[in-house]
C-alpha cells in the first residue's frame, strides 16, 4: 500500500465550494426563505434552576401577527433512544426535554415556550408576553455543590449508571461513573522514585462556531415535512426529529445547508423539532435563528472539569503508575464525555499500572454537546502537565521522556484493545528534530510540549458516483462539508477513475437523495465516507469493464481496468483478426453509455470500524508579561500522524484550527456565571476566543503512518489537534514563570495570582 503512487491524492486542488464561500454566495442555515415564512422566537428561562408552575400564552397569542405559540406540552415526552456510536445512545427523552422544558427549567436559557409570527418584531413582542411563573430553586453550578450531601437534586429519578460508587443508590447528581484499571497501582507507586500529584480544573467552554444554529421547517397539510438546517448530519437531524415527534422518518426530508462550523455542537437538534411543531400549528413555514447569546446559553458547550491525577516514575523516566479521578460537568442532563476522557488520558503511554475513575455530574448549565475529541483535552491537560513535572523532577528532556514511554504497535490501549500501526513515536521524533524544539527562547519566553490522542470514528456511510456522457462525474454523499470533505471526495473519484478533480462535481445531498450516512463528526468523513466513495468509484470501473466487454464482444474477465490518466479498460487478448485492441478510455466508454446498456451509476455503502488512533505532539512558545500576567503565543508547531493526507492543505487547516481552539481554551475562554447561575459573558466580546492577530502562523508537520483499514491509509485528523494545546500552553507557562498552573484559563489575573503578585479575587 505504501508503495502506491498517487495521481491526485496528496495534491492541493482548489475546493469546489471555495469561490461561493469567499464571495458570500454560499447558502448557510439562515439564508433560506420561503413564501409566507413566519419567524420563530424561543422564550427562555431566566433562572438556572426553577420549577415551572404555570405558563400562560393568551396574551402572546393575541399579539397581531402571531400564528402559533407552543410550550413543553407540544413536544412529546418520549422514551426513545437513538444509538449512534456516541457515548452510549442518545437519550431522546433528555433531548426532548432540553428542546423545551416540561416541568423544570434546568439552566438559564432553557427553552420554555416558542412563538411564530409574521415578523420578528411581533414574535419578540409576543415572546415577552408569554407569562411563565417559576418557583426558583437553588442553582447547582459546580461539581463540589452537585455532589454535596445536601445538594439539590436536578432529576428526582437519576441513578448512577456504569459502576456507581458503593453506597450511592440515588437519587443523585452523579449520572455516571466508569473505572479503568490495570496492574497494581499501590505497589507501583510505592516502588516509584518520583511521584507527582495535582488537582486540575478547566472551565466550561464553547466550540464557538461562527454560524449560529438556524433552520426553516415546513410542515405540510399532507403531513410531509421539509427542514432546511445547519447540521452536522442531515440523517441524524431527521432521525432526532422523527423519534422525538413520533413521526415516520420517511415523512421528513432534511436539506442540510452549508455549515459555518460545528465541532460537535451541531450534532444535537435545538430548533428543528420546535420549528416543525410551530409550522404544524401555524400551517406556514417557520424560520428560527439563534442569536449569539442564545448559542452560548442554550446550545451545547463542553464540560467544566475537576481532575485529580497522580503519576509515578522511575529515575530513568519509566512511568510505572498512574491514578486519576475525573469529574466532568454534564450540564443539565447526563452525558458528559468523562468516559472518553478516562479512555484517552493515558492512551499515549504504556503504563503498566493505573486506576482511573470518571464521573459524569449534572449541574445547572446547558447540556454539553460533543466538542472536537470530546473529553480528551481536559484529562490530557492533567496527564501532560504531570508528565512535564516528572521530566523536571528527574531532569530529563520532556520529549525523551515521552519517547521512552510512548505507545507503539502491539501495546495495549488503556481502554483495552491492542494498538495496530500507530505513529506516536514517529511524531515525537519529528518534534525532536524540528528546528522549533532547539530554537533559542527570548528572555520572557517559555517552551512547552504535549501529546494528544483521539480514537477516530468509523460508522456508516453511503456514496453514489454518476458518470456523465462527457466522461466527467458527480459524487453524492450525505455528509455536510465542514473541513473540505467535498474536494477530498472528488479527489478520491479522480484517483480511482483517472479523471481530473475539476471534472468531478461533489455534492452534499439531502436525506431523500443520499443513502443513509452517519454524521460529519468523529473525524470520520474522509475515512469512512471516503471508503464508500472509493468503492463507488471502483463500482464504476467494474461497470466500465462490462461495457468494454460488450463493445469488444468478449467475456468480461478478458478485460481489465487500468488506472491511468484517464482510466481505461484494456483487452487481455488480441482481436480475432490478430490486431491489438486499442484501450477504451473512460471518456470513450462514457460516450457510449446508452448503446452499451444505459447510465452508469456506482454506489457503495460501508459500516466502517473505527479508523484507529491519531496522535499529535505540539510545541508552544509562550511570551509572558510577568507584570501584567498577559501572555502571547510566540511560536507554535503541531506535529501529527495523519495516516494519509488526501488534501494536505485541509489537513493542515484542521491541525491549525484545533490548535487555535485549544490555545483559546488554555488562555482565555471560560463561561462566567453570576451567583444566580446566569451567564455573564454570552458573546464574543467577553467570551474571549482568540482573534486572528492573537496567534502566530501555526506550523504543521504531517507524519504519515498508513492506517491499514483504509485503502489509502487515511485516518481521522480533525480532532486530535485540540488535545495537546491545553498542556502545551500550560507547560510553556511553567517554563516561562517557574510556576505550575493547574487551572484554566490562564487569564492575566489568574497568572498574576499564581505568581503571587496579587491576591486571589
Amino acid at each position, binding site marked *: 500500500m505504501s508503495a502506491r503512487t498517487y495521481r491526485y491524492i496528496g495534491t492541493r486542488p482548489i475546493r469546489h465550494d471555495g469561490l461561493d464561500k469567499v464571495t458570500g454566495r454560499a447558502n448557510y442555515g439562515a439564508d433560506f426563505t420561503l413564501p409566507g415564512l413566519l419567524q420563530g422566537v424561543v422564550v427562555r428561562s431566566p433562572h438556572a434552576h426553577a420549577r415551572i408552575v404555570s405558563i400562560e400564552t393568551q396574551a402572546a397569542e393575541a399579539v397581531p401577527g402571531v400564528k402559533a405559540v407552543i410550550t413543553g406540552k407540544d413536544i412529546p415526552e418520549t422514551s426513545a433512544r437513538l444509538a449512534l456510536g456516541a457515548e452510549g445512545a442518545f437519550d431522546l427523552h433528555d433531548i426532548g426535554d432540553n428542546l423545551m422544558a416540561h416541568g423544570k427549567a434546568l439552566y438559564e436559557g432553557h427553552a420554555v415556550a416558542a412563538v411564530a409570527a409574521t415578523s420578528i418584531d411581533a414574535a419578540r413582542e409576543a415572546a415577552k408576553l408569554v407569562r411563565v411563573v417559576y418557583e426558583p430553586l437553588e442553582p447547582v453550578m459546580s461539581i463540589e455543590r452537585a455532589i454535596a450531601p445536601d445538594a439539590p437534586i436536578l432529576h428526582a429519578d437519576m441513578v448512577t449508571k456504569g459502576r456507581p460508587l458503593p453506597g450511592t443508590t440515588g437519587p443523585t447528581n452523579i449520572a455516571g461513573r466508569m473505572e479503568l484499571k490495570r496492574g497494581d497501582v499501590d505497589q507501583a507507586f510505592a516502588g516509584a522514585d518520583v511521584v507527582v500529584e495535582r488537582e486540575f480544573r478547566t472551565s466550561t467552554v464553547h466550540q464557538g462556531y461562527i454560524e449560529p444554529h438556524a433552520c426553516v421547517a415546513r410542515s405540510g397539510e399532507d403531513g410531509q415535512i421539509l427542514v432546511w438546517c445547519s447540521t452536522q448530519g442531515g440523517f441524524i437531524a431527521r432521525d432526532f426529529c422523527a423519534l422525538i415527534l413520533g413521526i415516520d422518518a420517511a415523512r421528513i426530508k432534511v436539506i442540510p445547508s452549508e455549515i459555518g462550523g460545528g465541532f460537535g455542537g451541531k450534532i444535537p437538534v435545538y430548533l428543528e423539532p420546535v420549528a416543525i411543531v410551530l409550522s404544524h400549528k401555524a400551517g406556514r413555514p417557520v424560520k428560527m435563528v439563534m442569536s449569539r447569546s442564545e448559542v452560548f446559553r442554550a446550545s451545547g458547550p463542553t464540560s467544566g472539569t475537576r481532575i485529580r491525577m497522580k503519576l509515578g516514575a522511575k529515575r530513568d523516566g519509566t512511568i510505572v503508575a498512574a491514578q486519576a479521578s475525573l469529574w466532568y460537568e454534564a450540564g443539565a442532563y447526563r452525558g458528559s464525555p468523562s468516559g472518553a476522557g478516562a479512555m484517552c488520558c493515558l492512551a499515549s503511554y504504556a503504563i503498566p499500572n493505573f486506576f482511573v475513575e470518571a464521573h459524569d455530574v449534572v449541574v445547572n448549565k446547558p447540556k454539553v454537546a460533543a466538542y472536537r475529541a470530546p473529553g480528551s483535552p481536559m484529562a490530557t491537560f492533567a496527564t501532560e502537565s504531570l508528565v512535564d513535572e516528572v521530566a523536571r523532577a528527574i531532569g530529563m528532556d520532556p520529549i525523551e521522556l515521552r519517547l521512552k514511554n510512548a505507545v507503539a504497535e502491539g501495546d495495549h490501549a488503556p481502554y483495552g484493545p491492542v494498538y495496530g500501526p500507530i505513529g506516536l513515536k514517529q511524531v515525537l521524533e519529528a518534534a525532536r528534530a524540528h528546528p522549533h524544539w532547539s530554537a533559542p527562547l527570548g528572555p520572557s519566553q517559555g517552551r512547552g510540549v504535549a501529546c494528544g490522542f483521539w480514537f477516530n470514528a468509523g460508522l456508516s456511510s453511503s456514496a453514489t458516483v454518476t458518470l456523465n456522457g462527457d466522461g466527467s462525474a458527480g459524487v453524492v454523499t450525505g455528509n455536510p462539508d465542514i473541513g473540505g470533505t467535498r474536494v477530498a471526495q472528488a479527489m478520491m473519484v479522480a484517483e480511482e477513475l483517472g479523471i481530473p478533480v475539476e471534472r468531478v462535481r461533489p455534492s452534499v445531498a439531502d436525506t431523500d437523495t443520499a443513502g443513509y450516512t452517519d454524521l460529519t463528526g468523529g473525524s470520520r468523513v474522509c475515512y469512512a465516507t471516503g471508503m464508500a466513495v472509493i468503492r463507488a468509484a471502483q463500482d464504476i470501473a467494474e461497470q466500465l469493464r462490462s461495457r468494454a466487454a460488450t463493445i469488444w464482444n468478449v467475456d468480461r474477465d478478458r478485460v481489465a481496468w487500468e488506472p491511468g490518466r484517464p482510466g481505461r479498460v484494456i483487452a487481455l487478448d488480441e482481436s480475432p483478426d490478430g490486431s491489438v485492441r486499442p484501450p477504451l478510455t473512460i471518456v470513450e466508454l462514457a460516450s457510449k453509455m446508452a448503446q452499451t446498456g444505459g447510465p452508469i451509476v456506482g454506489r457503495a455503502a460501508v459500516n466502517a470500524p473505527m479508523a484507529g488512533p491519531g496522535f499529535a505532539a505540539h510545541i508552544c512558545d509562550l511570551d509572558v508579561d510577568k507584570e501584567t500576567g498577559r501572555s502571547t503565543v510566540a511560536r507554535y508547531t503541531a506535529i501529527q500522524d495523519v495516516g494519509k493526507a488526501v488534501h494536505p492543505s485541509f489537513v493542515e487547516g484542521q491541525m491549525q484550527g484545533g490548535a487555535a481552539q485549544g490555545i483559546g481554551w488554555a488562555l482565555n475562554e471560560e463561561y462566567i456565571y453570576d451567583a444566580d447561575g446566569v451567564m455573564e459573558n454570552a458573546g464574543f466580546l*467577553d467570551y474571549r476566543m482568540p482573534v486572528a492577530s492573537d496567534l502566530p502562523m501555526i506550523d504543521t508537520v504531517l507524519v504519515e503512518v498508513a492506517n491499514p483499514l483504509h485503502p489509502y491509509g487515511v485516518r481521522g485528523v480533525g480532532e486530535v489537534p485540540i488535545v495537546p494545546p491545553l498542556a502545551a500552553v500550560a507547560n510553556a507557562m511553567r517554563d516561562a514563570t517557574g510556576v505550575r498552573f493547574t487551572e484554566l484559563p490562564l487569564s*492575566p489575573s489568574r497568572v498574576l495570582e499564581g505568581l503571587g503578585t*496579587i491576591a486571589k479575587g
Partner: protein
Amino acid sequence: MLSIRYEAPRSIAEAIHLLASDPGAHVLAGGTDLLVQFRAGAKQPSAFIDVKRIPDLVGISLDTNGLRLGAATPAAAICEHAELGRLWPGLVEAVHLIGSAQIQGRGSVGGNLCNASPAADTTSALIADRAECVIAGPGGERVVPAERFCTGPGTTILRRDELLVAVVLPRPPARTADAYFRLIPRSEMDIAVAGAGASVTLDASGTCTAARVAVGAVAPTALLVDAAGQALIGTRLDEATLSLAAAAASAAARPISDKRGTAAYRRHVVGVLAKRAIVSAAARARER
C-alpha cells in the same frame, strides 16, 4: 410595529432644536456604540439625530494654539492624519485601538466620550493631553475639561438638549509627548481591563517639568491622577519615581471585580500601565 425617526440636521442649532423637542431622541455619530445598544434592546430611541452632516462636528483643524477635533470625526481620519500622529502619538494610539478598520471608519472620539464607558480608550488619553470639551446648548457654548465630562458609567454632564461639538487640545510645548496603554487579554477586539494615558514635559536636561497621568476602567469614570503627575515633576524619572507614580495610579483606582478582571488585578495593572505610559511618553519627549 417599531418606528423610529431619522434626522440629519445641517447645523448645530437645528440639532439642538431636534433634541430639545423630542426627549427620546439620541445623537447618532458613528453609531458603533449606539446601534449596538439599540439592537441589544438596551436603548430605545424615538429618533436618531445623525450629527455627521453638521460641518462644525466633522473635521480636524490644527493651528499654533492647538487642535480642534470635530466630535463626530471618524477615528480613521484621525489615524491617517500625519501631523496629529506626530504631535499626539498617544492620543492617536488610543484612537487606533478602537475596534477594527471597519469600526474606525465610523466611530468617533466624541462618541467615545459621550458613551461614557469607564473603559473608553480615548478618554484617558484626552485627559492626559489637557483636552477640553466644547459643548453647545440652547443657551450657547460652554467648555469643560475632559476629566469632568463623564460623571459615571454611561452618564455625562451633557444635558438632554446639549451636544458635544468638539474637543480642543493645546499644542504641546517643547519636549512634550504623550502615550496611552491599555490591557486586554487578547490583541484586539476587546474592552480595556485597565488603561492609562500620560503626558510628560521635560526640560533640556531631561528633568520633568510637567506631567499628567490619567487612568481608565478602574473607576466609574476615567480619572486624572494628580498625585501620579506630581510625583514626576522635578525628577529625572528614575525607577523609584516611576514606582511612586505607579503606586499613585493604583491608589487612585476604585475598581470593581467583574467578568473582565478582578479588582485586585485592575488596581495592580493600572499602575504597571501608568508606568509604561510615562516611560513611553518621556522617551518620545526626549526625541523632540
